[in-house]
Each structure stands twice: as C-alpha cells, then as structure tokens.
C-alpha cells in the first residue's frame, strides 16, 4: 500500500467559502482547527453539525488542503448536497478525514500518466496533477458543456472535452465528445506506455480500464460508491474484486481498500447494473 498515509482526524470546521466554480460545480472551503494532510485520491466524510445532521456523513474527495483549510468540489444531486449548498460562511461542518487508499505516488520508474477526470471526478485528480507536476503527463477533463467546466481551476496543462460545445469561453479550447475520445486523439500524438488514472462516472472508469487493459498499461480508478461509515466498519460500500478464493472474487470495502483501486483487480462483470455500469 506504499508509504504511510496521514492520520485521519474527526474535526468540526467552519465554512470560509461556498461558491460555484462552474454551472454544475461548487467549491466548499472549510477551516479546520488544525492542519490535516492528505494524499490525492483520499476523501473526507462531511456532515452538518448537531441536530438536523444527516444520519450518515457524505464522502467527498479532497480537492486541496492548504494549511488548516480543506477544500472540496461538489455537485448537488440529493438531500445532503442540497444542504451543503445552503451552508454559509461561518457555518459548522463535521469533517472526518483523510480516509481511504490514495492514487499511486509516481517515482522515477512510473511511466507518464494519462489522467481522465469526468465531472465531479475532478478533485482527486486535480490534486494529483498539482502534487506531481510531471511534464509528460496528459491531463484531461470531461464536462457536460462549456459552462460546466471550472475553467479557472484548469491551467494550460489540462485538455478539456465537452458533450456539447456551447458555453466554451473565448480563448479556451474544448474537444466535442467523450473524454475518452479526446484521450485517444492525444495518445495518437504521444508514444509510449502510460499510467492511466481515472475518476468519474462508471462508464468512464470502464472505458479507462479497457483502454489500459488493451495496451497492457497500469490503471487506477477511483470508485464513487455510496457509503455508510466511510471508515471500514459497516460493509455498506463493498465492490467485487478478483481473488484466489474458490469463488474467484470477494468483496472489498471501497472506503478502506479503495476508493482508488487497481483496475485490473476489480471484477468489472460483477460490478453490475447497481453500480451504474451500463457502458
């Protein structure tokens, strides 16, 4: 599992900013009572504080941790994230993290990366790209349309794709189509093996895993399974991984053994319809 990961803390922080960074994404900054480290790919479990809080916290990838401030990017999809969007400066937030297995930390032998981030899959890979500024990496983000892309967070290393081209600001470029299509185009121009890293909707993860498998490249994907506890105690977020057991597979907790998995160890066939795996 590589080097030791930073100690997880259960802290109550205060919101210092909670603002849109695109039409679909918001950024939440939380000032914690102490500095907490993280490794890209790790997440935190967030909740409101006190009465009215959710029965379970919600998992969010850590986008950045700067001193005592921890930052997240999120999309409103349900009750919890709607409550989150209503948080104002100074409101309290319960934050448990960093948790989970991070993305691989590259060393001198690691091939250049192909980074594929789709939608809210951006934060862990943005953090990874910030932590490891390797010139030969190909870094891609896929959004719904030009408005959905948080342009201000993406420097010129980022290649962008959009499902629909409307809303792309002047001076910025976007490939129209799937982010995997963009990747295939880029790969044609740059030779050699790559480490594929992906986070986003399940179809994107499947496509990334296949792209790597077809070429014999290593690949890590971050799964966004619904979670109960987030720290390995409830078995509510299991995913099937291949194993030497008689059955040929076993359950792995995506909070503790993941959320980042070696794509070759996942049992993609079993990771079926309940995981949005249609593609």
């Amino acid at each position, binding site marked *: 599992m590589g080097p030791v990961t930073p100690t997880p803390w259960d802290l109550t922080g205060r919101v210092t900013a909670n603002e849109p960074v695109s039409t679909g994404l918001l950024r939440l900054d939380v000032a914690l009572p102490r500095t907490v480290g993280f490794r890209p790919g790790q997440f935190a479990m967030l909740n409101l504080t006190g009465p009215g809080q959710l029965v379970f916290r919600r998992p969010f990838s850590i986008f950045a941790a700067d001193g005592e401030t921890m930052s997240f990017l999120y999309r409103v999809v349900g009750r919890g994230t709607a409550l989150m969007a209503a948080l104002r400066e100074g409101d309290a937030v319960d934050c448990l993290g960093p948790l989970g297995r991070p993305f691989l930390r590259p060393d001198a032998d690691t091939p250049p990366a192909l980074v594929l981030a789709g939608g809210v899959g951006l934060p862990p890979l943005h953090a990874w790209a910030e932590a490891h500024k390797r010139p030969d990496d190909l870094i891609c983000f896929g959004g719904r349309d030009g408005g959905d892309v948080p342009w201000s967070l993406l420097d010129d290393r980022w290649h962008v794709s959009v499902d629909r081209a409307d809303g792309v600001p002047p001076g910025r470029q976007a490939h129209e189509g799937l982010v995997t299509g963009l990747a295939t185009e880029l790969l044609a121009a740059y030779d050699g093996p790559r480490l594929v890293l992906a986070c986003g909707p399940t179809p994107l993860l499947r496509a990334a895993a296949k792209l790597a498998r077809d070429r014999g490249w290593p690949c890590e994907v971050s799964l966004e*399974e619904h979670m109960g506890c987030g720290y390995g*105690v409830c*078995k*509510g977020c299991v995913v099937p991984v291949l194993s030497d057991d008689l059955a040929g597979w076993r359950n792995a907790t995506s909070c503790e053994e993941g959320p980042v998995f070696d794509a070759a160890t996942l049992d993609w066939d079993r990771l079926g319809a309940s995981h949005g795996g249609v593609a």
Partner: protein
Amino acid sequence: MTLPIWWRTDPTQPVRIGPRELPGRIWTASGCFAYGLSGHDIRSLDVGSPYAGIGAVVTKTVTPQPRSGNPMPRLVELEHGAINSIGLENVGHAEFVEAVLPALEERGVPTVVSLAATRPDEFGPMCERLAEVGRGFVHWHGVELNLSCPNVAEGGHDFGSSPATVAECVAAARPHLPDRLLIAKLTPNVAQIAPLAAAAAEAGCDAIAAINTVLGLDIDLETGQPVLPRRFGGYSGPAIRPIALAKCDEIIRQVGVPVIGIGGIETADDALRFFALGCAAVQVGTAQMRDPFAAARMAAALRPDAATT
C-alpha cells in the same frame, strides 16, 4: 450538558455482568464497528481515540462459514434512520478465531464476540473453539448470540422468535463458556419480547441485548420498487429508539435479567433514557457509523464529573 440529579454512575468504571467485570457501560453494537480493529488510527481533539472509555466492542456477527453478504445496495438512508441488508458479511468463524480474536487481545480491545448460526446446535462447537483459543485472554469478555438478524434467508424462518429455539441456542452455548459473559440478542419483531427473554434467562444466559433492527421496507418512487434488492431490511437509528425503550422496559419489568439497551442511541441523553429504565449497559449502532467517536464521547459526557470539568 448538565446531567440529571439521579445519574451518579461513572459509565467508564468497571461493571460486573454475569461472571465478568467489563471496563464500562457504553459499548458499540454489532455490525456497526466491525471487529474492533478499525478506526484505531483516527484522532479527535476532545476524546482522542474512538476506543477511549468504551466498555466493550461487540464484534460484527461471525457465522460458522464465511459469508459475502447480500447484493448491493445494502444500506439506504432515510430521514430518521437507515435500512440495511448487509447479510452478515463476515470472515467466518475459523478465520475469526485464528486471526481476529488474538489481534483484539493484543490490542487490548474489550471484546464481546457476536455469533450467529442457522441451527441451534452450531453454537456449541463455535463457543467451544472460542473458549479454547481465548483461554487466558483477559480482554475477551464473552459472547452475544445474535438470535435476531433479519437479513439471512437460511432456514426460511426467523428462529429468534420462538422461545423454545432461543432456549436451545443458549443451552448449546452455555456449557462451553463457564466463566464468560453470555448474552442473547433478541429481535423486536414480535408482539411480546418478555417470553423470549425469559426463555433465554432460564436456559442460562447472563444478560439480554435488545433490540436488533426493526423490519423495514422503503420504496423508490421513481421505479416503484423496494430500495433494497431483498425488499426488506433492518431499520435502525433514532426512529427506533422509542420501540427499543419499550422492549427493554418489558423485559426489565417482567424478567429478572440484566438488559443491555440498544436502539437509536445517538447522544448521552439517549443513553440516559435506557439507564433510567435500569439497563446495565447500552450499545451504540448507527450513530457509531456516522461518528467513530460517538460511544467514546457519550462515555466522557456521562461521567458525573463531566459537567464540572
């Protein structure tokens, strides 16, 4: 928080239940804190460790064979609780006894091992083997027989709802655990729980744990289908607390056996309600999943000196 004047007990002081003295009265509930090996590295500014002041960890239920559990999704949050259908995913008794129990002893985690089986006579050999391996262990306090899981299909009947079967299970376990605590954990999904508790007590158990989850079902309005693939699951969390209090009260008033209260305990106030009925200890389930420090914070808040410090 100010503590009520009738509360003078320090829940982090040793408590005798049956043949054992346990280090405290606030425990974690089965299935909600894994085996007691998770979360040791998590820190907080107030209580420090999730294990600080805890009386016991009741392990995830262990079955004779390993189980991979039920299909996903297994856990669905509702407004005032959650329905789960984990399906007793566990490493199996052999692996538990060889690897997990010694690790718990080494770490010094006060442990109660939760066991389930599909036939009463399976409890005998499981307890015998536990006693063999755990001989001389000081942190392993005993066994909780899970006679109440709604999420296992084998046998096709809920054997925890028959007093005769409950007695058989307790009787099968008791002879192998002469000096360990033996608890029967009962289902609330019966009209009367006291006859089950009486049968368990008569068969020789030291305490009753109540309650396990309440049978529940929810519908996804978009599809019109139950949210869980197995349709129903176990409902837990704050919504079931009044049900749990009523069941504990029924047992305490009708059967002279120590009761360990479980169900919707989220705060120190919630725990006090169970202690007010006369519960010897309480277990924290769903709240422990949200907050690794739930039980530890409760224990700290309920120390009689807590209000003044």
